[in-house]
């Protein structure tokens, strides 16, 4: 027997079939976990975020146009939710960066500005958790809209039309946001470098 299509599940959900909605959630929850984690960063609150995204989707489900795929629509709800959370709780992420000792900061910054594959560079074998910390510290300083755009494009590898769909903007706006995020990240990275006195090593 063939698995029911998304739109069949949606129809059954709207008729009151709880199991059908559970199946729909099962199909898309890992995508939503991913969006929440990548945009917001790891937190024990992510579970609440995932639930909230699907409850919002459920609340809006009867207005969902079945001709469109469900995945991008729920990604959009997730993205909106995350941006909103970032706006409300700027202090959600503790100061991971400042928790690091000065020499750790300097080493990570030096690694991150190195060419791929260099012996102690960010080749993935060095200190992945440390790099993630730096990346998170830099991302935390970005405008939530730029940050979401950057994650969708660079980390989730979505093309600009998908980024635009998730953000609810035009493709041009999506491009502008990704481009600004890239430039901002470099600017903030420089600021960190100079605060560690490691600036001359960047080039």
């Amino acid at each position, binding site marked *: 027997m063939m698995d029911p299509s998304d739109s069949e599940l949606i129809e059954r959900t709207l008729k009151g079939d709880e199991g059908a909605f559970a199946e729909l959630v099962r199909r898309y929850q890992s995508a939503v976990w991913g969006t929440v984690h990548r945009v917001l960063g790891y937190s024990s609150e992510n579970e609440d975020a995932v639930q909230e995204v699907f409850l919002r989707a459920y609340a809006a489900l009867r207005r969902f146009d079945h001709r469109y795929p469900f995945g991008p629509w729920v990604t959009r709800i997730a993205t*909106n939710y995350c941006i909103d959370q970032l706006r409300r709780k700027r202090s959600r992420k503790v100061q991971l960066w400042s928790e690091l000792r000065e020499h750790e900061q300097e080493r990570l910054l030096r690694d991150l500005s190195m060419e791929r594959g260099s012996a102690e560079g960010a080749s993935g074998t060095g200190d992945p958790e440390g790099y*993630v910390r730096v990346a998170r510290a830099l991302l935390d300083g970005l405008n939530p809209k730029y940050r979401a755009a950057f994650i969708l494009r660079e980390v989730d590898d979505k093309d600009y039309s998908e980024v635009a769909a998730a953000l609810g903007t035009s493709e041009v706006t999506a491009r502008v946001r990704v481009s600004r995020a*890239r430039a901002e*990240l*470099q600017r903030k990275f420089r600021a960190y470098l100079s605060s560690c006195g490691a600036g001359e090593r960047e080039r």
Partner: protein
Amino acid sequence: MKRACALLDRYRDGELDDAGRESFERHLAGCGECRARLRLLDNLVRALKMEPVRTVDLSARIARRAFAPAPTWYTLVASCFPPRLALAAAALGVLLFVFAWFLPGSRTVSAYTEYEKLLNEAEASNLAGRLLVQNDSELLLQLISQEE
């Protein structure tokens, strides 16, 4: 910043044709600024992609919550008080109920009241034909993000 630096995004996104790519790569050889940005992005993105995403199956719990009856004013009031105060809360609730009964549209308090308000706004704007030209869910979410 040189003019060619503006092509960095197109280059990173793999959108330049062969000739464009070659000329940007010549630019890169002489532009430390662009080189540094590309290197940094490479390294940051690689680190972020390696980060494992923890997932837990929430499907049954979410479906149960979605299908639970919307909390009504008395369950909300009751949940604010310890059991010994429940009676007082119930009495207060009766008063509130009598009051609320005469307010149009406030007979139940849904967890998604604000959200539903937005849905209704979107529906109202359908009259202006706006929903005919785009997916209504997109318009909805626009309304919601404006609101936020």
